């Protein structure tokens, strides 16, 4: 454990250096996250003639800018890295290192957050300028935002890790993640605020883990929950994190037994 505490900051530093080295590409990846703005366009047009389901034009702006912010700050790409390394056989090299590959990848993904912050700052500025009246006034919501964002990132990272682990057995694990992403776009509130869905869909979305990835932190920023409700939701989010963590461990162990390094 103490060894890990010494190692991890070093891994973070290496990951950060890498993100800085590929900064041009990195920024372009960030800029290609524009879906919330595309969705904002249609809803803003729809709300020209009056509020839609409790959202004014300003309300939509606040929601989608917050969604963009959460998506920018909680990105992960480990599933593509895993499927590529497994196919090319370079995973074997990682396994030889005296640290768990998933820890290395998590450091790489986390270390990019300062770079993500650079892109996120203008989004925050626009959010504060356009729709500051829509944001939460309670400091408690903002205090919970930190663990909520960390939980959201962990959920995203761990789902990718679980599906990436499946690549040890199946060829098309990346396609599986693509399908998961399709459902997640709808059910996490990324494309449409969950409270605008018909009742049946909304109730389904509220129990599935997707909402904790995006909708929950966004709602915290918009001050939708009382303190007690927010705490309850945070607990639910972290329960999902714990569940995913255990699943990752199980999937990794059993997957590794199937792994025959190609070309090795």
């Amino acid at each position: 454990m103490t060894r890990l505490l010494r190692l991890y900051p070093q891994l973070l530093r290496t990951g950060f250096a890498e993100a800085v080295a590929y900064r041009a590409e990195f920024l372009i990846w960030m800029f290609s996250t524009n879906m919330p703005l595309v969705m904002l366009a249609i809803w803003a047009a729809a709300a020209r003639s009056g509020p839609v389901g409790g959202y004014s034009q300003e309300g939509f702006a606040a929601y989608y800018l917050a969604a963009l912010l959460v998506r920018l700050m909680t990105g992960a790409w480990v599933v593509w890295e895993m499927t590529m390394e497994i196919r090319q056989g370079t995973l074997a090299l990682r396994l030889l290192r005296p640290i768990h590959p998933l820890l290395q990848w998590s450091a790489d993904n986390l270390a990019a957050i300062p770079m993500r912050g650079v892109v996120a700052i203008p989004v925050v500025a626009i959010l504060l300028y356009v729709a500051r009246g829509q944001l939460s006034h309670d400091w408690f919501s903002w205090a919970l935002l930190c663990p909520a964002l960390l939980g959201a990132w962990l959920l995203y990272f761990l789902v990718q890790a679980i599906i990436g682990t499946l690549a040890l057995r199946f060829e098309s694990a990346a396609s599986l993640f693509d399908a998961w992403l399709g459902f997640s776009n709808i059910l996490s509130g990324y494309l449409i605020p969950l409270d605008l869905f018909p009742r049946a869909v909304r109730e389904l979305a509220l129990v599935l883990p997707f909402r904790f990835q995006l909708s929950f932190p966004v709602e915290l920023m918009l001050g939708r929950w009382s303190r007690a409700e927010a705490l309850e939701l945070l607990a639910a989010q972290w329960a999902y994190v714990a569940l995913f963590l255990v699943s990752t461990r199980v999937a990794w162990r059993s997957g590794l037994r199937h792994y025959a390094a190609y070309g090795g």
Partner: protein
Amino acid sequence: MMRALRVVRAQLRASVAVALQYRFEFAVEGALALLWMGVTLVPLVVVFGTRDSVAGWTFPEMLVVLGWFVALKGVLEGTLSPSLMQVVEHVRKGTLDFVLLKPADAQLLVSFSKIEPWRVTDFAGAAVIFAFAFQRIGHAPALMHVLLAAVMLCAAVMVLYSIAILVVAIAFIAVRVDNLLYLFQSVFDVARWPSTVFRGTLAVVFTFVLPLALMTTYPALALLGKLTPQTAVGALVGTLLFAGVARAIWISSIRRYTSASS
């Protein structure tokens, strides 16, 4: 000209043959394309659950725009992007020299080198969307309008292709930004809405600078019988200009290209 067509045909055949080797992938990717089409439709259905018309467009009319969007996205992500991503790869590895040495036009050679045939599901999906939309409108489009829409579609594909070529030409100058094509793919997502959704500066940008209006809004207007002849002619002239500029920039950046190996 005949020779160019023969080259294109041979290339298409070769790349389809390569893709068809992976039959399981064909099925999986085809299913995924259907899923994402559903994801594209959901927001529109929810928006029109609350409003009868948005920015002057009714639900079936907006569906016609979305139909063109789905079809063009199929063209972009099924043909143009995979082929042109290979150019970027060639530039980085220095293997573009082999393409340039071949006795045919390089732009022609790189444009159809890789195809993902499962994206035909996009065209099938677009056809279903059109059928549903016109069933809701209550009458089929007139033959005249279908023909005009077909012409506008050709213009749309031409513009799409020109932009893709421009983006790749940039890759010659700045190899570091090899994912610029992905950025364009994500900007193209804006074309799912008709151009009247945007106001002010954005409306001007998406009509004249990055002519997304030309790609989906004008073909949709043509199919609905609402495109004025002036707009149609203007769009066609604009398309030819755009394609000419793209070709000129491609040639000049090929000339500036200094291979990685020499």
